[in-house]
């Protein structure tokens, strides 16, 4: 067994193991966008392969992501591409693949390694904490979304009666949601303007700085370069990004898209309104409504979003979302977190409730 960083010429083999084990059809361009052509741009790429007889049988990677808190901008690593061929399970390969990555994180002064995984059990053997889990906010436009979500949860094995009940229940919750959406004011408050961004706004980084000043804690540093890569040049599916402006000053944005499953996804939402005459709740509600109507017009069966922790902005989003017809479901994946030595200097990493993270494309793709 040979474990080490990605070597030249191994990209195709890494893609193939992903497509084989995940039964996916990811393209090489998509793979490269995620791991090679991201905003980090430093060599070597933090992508580890486990090889047996020259054949790749496991992968584990980092996507370096900048975060920001009141102290400034810092690098973190998001754990991705956790794959081990079934035949090699139980051989502690994940632990062995993480070893060079932990070294890498230390060398590069990464503050924290984080991620979301359905395979939390595998991480119990590693020095990771499990500070929370993702939960869902969703708003169905039709019963098809509920049917789709239930089918995902049950693997599609529903009896006729159960399917009929799900459909009837789905219709009812969709009708209730659409009533609440319809009753929400569509009028844009005076002095505000909503624009669809055709490319990332240069003011994005400054919004993030104001965001952590206003709300505290830490969040992903979405400067225009990051947004351009993650949202506007995403080779899976891009986002519609709507910015809210007051006298040409960007106060925040909402990004939404449609997944391959036909469900709309709230990809990102951020508001920093310390200098605005409007409350954050008003702006968040308005942006949520834009996402809901936008996803509905794109033919989505509903829209869903994450609810991750008790960050004050996260709580505000959840509260505004409920007003326009979202429901909250406590189902999701555990968060895994590892504090690196460099992270000890940062107060924002003490509690996970200090984090504000959105879906912002979990693995690049959505569904």
């Amino acid at each position, binding site marked *: 067994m040979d474990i080490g960083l990605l070597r030249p010429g191994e990209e195709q083999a890494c893609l193939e193991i992903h497509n084989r084990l995940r039964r996916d059809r990811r393209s090489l361009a998509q793979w490269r966008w995620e791991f090679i052509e991201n905003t980090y741009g430093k060599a070597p790429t933090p992508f580890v392969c486990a090889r047996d007889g020259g054949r790749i049988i496991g992968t584990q990677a980092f996507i370096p992501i900048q975060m920001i808190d009141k102290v400034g901008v810092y690098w973190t690593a998001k754990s991705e591409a956790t794959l081990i061929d079934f035949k090699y399970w139980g051989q502690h390969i994940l632990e062995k693949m993480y070893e060079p990555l932990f070294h890498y994180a230390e060398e590069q002064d990464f503050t924290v390694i984080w991620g979301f995984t359905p395979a939390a059990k595998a991480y119990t053997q590693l020095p990771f904490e499990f500070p929370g889990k993702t939960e869902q906010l969703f708003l169905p436009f039709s019963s098809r979304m509920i049917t789709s979500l239930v089918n995902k949860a049950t693997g599609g094995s529903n009896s006729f009666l159960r399917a009929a009940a799900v459909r009837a229940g789905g219709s009812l919750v969709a009708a209730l949601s659409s009533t609440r959406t319809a009753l929400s004011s569509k009028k844009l408050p005076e002095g505000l303007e909503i624009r669809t961004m*055709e490319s990332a706004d240069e003011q994005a980084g400054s919004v993030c700085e104001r965001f952590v000043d206003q709300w505290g804690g830490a969040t992903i540093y979405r400067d225009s370069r990051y947004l351009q890569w993650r949202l506007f040049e995403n080779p899976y*599916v*891009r986002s519609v990004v709507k910015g809210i402006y007051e006298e040409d000053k960007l106060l925040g944005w909402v990004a939404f898209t449609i997944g*391959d499953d036909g469900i709309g996804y709230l990809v990102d939402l951020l508001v920093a309104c310390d200098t605005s005459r409007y409350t954050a709740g008003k702006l968040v509600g308005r942006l949520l409504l834009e996402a809901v109507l*936008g996803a*509905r*017009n*794109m*033919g989505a069966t509903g829209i869903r979003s994450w609810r991750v922790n008790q960050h004050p902005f996260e709580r505000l989003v959840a509260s505004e979302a409920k007003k326009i017809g979202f429901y909250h479901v406590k189902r999701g994946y555990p968060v895994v977190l590892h504090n690196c030595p460099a992270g000890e200097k940062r107060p924002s990493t003490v509690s996970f409730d200090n984090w504000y993270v959105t879906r912002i494309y979990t693995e690049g793709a959505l569904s």
Partner: protein
Amino acid sequence: MISRAAVGYVRSQLAGHVRLFFHEPAADLIKGESIRFLSYVDAVSTKERCIVIPTDIPIPFEPDLPWTSEFNGTSVTLWNRIRKPDAEGWRGVPAEASPVWWVHDSGTVLPSWNLFGNILDLLTFGEEKRSSERDQHGRFDWKSSPRTKHGLLEVPTVNEAAALLVAALTSMSRSEPPALVLGDNILKPPVVVLSHDCDSLKGNDFTSQLIRLYRVIQPVTKGRWPKLSNLWWIARNATSPRRYYFDDATGLLDIERCFGATSTFYLLNGSGGRLGARSPIAEARRFADRVPSSWEVGMHYNYDTYLDRDKFAAQLGQLKQAIVQPIVSGRAHYLRFDPFRSFSFLREFGIYVDESSGWSDKVAYRNGLAGCFQAYDPESDVPLDIWEVPLAVMDDGLVGEFGADSITAIERHLQHLKCVGGAFTILFHPGNFANPEHPRTIGIYHEILKASRRVEADFCTARSLVDLVRK
């Protein structure tokens, strides 16, 4: 007798096509001296390493029995066979029974089918010229095409011919026999050209509501239950006129953004009624204001403007006053289009991109081409400065023909174009995109975009495609 102008026309269409869908070396090869357009007698007597294309073989009314050959991971379909020359030294490649090329020992390569005649005939609407059959709207029906009964309407024969030529020229440039495979980095990804005819941007117009009311009552006259769901659509669009129409159009813009696509919105204005515009010009203006600069806005020529200068000028004038985008492209409402008079007519009004050549109820290549071509005036024997981007797929036609297999059909075409190069043109109406009143087409557009992504297709508008080839 084929004129030199006609030969030059076919040659330049092939060169333009190759420039669009193949990388640079291929475009240079097709323009070079290695292809010669000659009479049949001169062609078979040539004894040099080059491709000789006979230009004087007539086209029969019915396509001569077609055959297929494997090529670059797909199958190409040829018809109107050129028999193997009688002289010694000619052999069929890849096989005598189903040849693509007749190759002489000296290196001369002769197509085994009437490459020149087929292309010229299809690009100059030869089928329409030979048939007087037209439907109630004055259109040439696909059922009247002689290609129909041989299953040739779904064959992009111009694309296949161009790809075969490029493959042969590439291998011949290395002093090898004509290959039936395109090497790496020769072919560009397939292109998807999207467009939307905005017949109606509000669902509450008198005609639409009356039609819904008729649909409620009509079954009763035949002793069936009334279709009460139409009452719901009446009420819904009475209270929310833009829902599923204007909102569909903005949804189309957004979903295209998500897939990195752009498209053209053809706006219908002018006179109203069942065959005319269903929403006021103010709605067209309101929507055009929302269309970003990477998308195109064009004119959906109203039904009554067909070859009528005054009415066409009035519609165009009204549209130009309402919107800021320049109007240089268009498509005829009901695809009402005369291939012999409409091109020069449209050019008079500054239109240089047209997307009217296609069928609403059949997924097909009306001109045997997935791409674009320059219109040709057979009267004066000169090409016109107006380009046709033939329509291959229309929403209702797609689901009408293929039903649940619609996406499989789309994917089959895209996969084929991935192997031979070309642009696949798709029309989707706002109102059919996410409208529960038309459930058959719900979700289809999203699936088309996903299928396009799977084949790694590029997207462009008809105008940007034409602008590239006009350069």
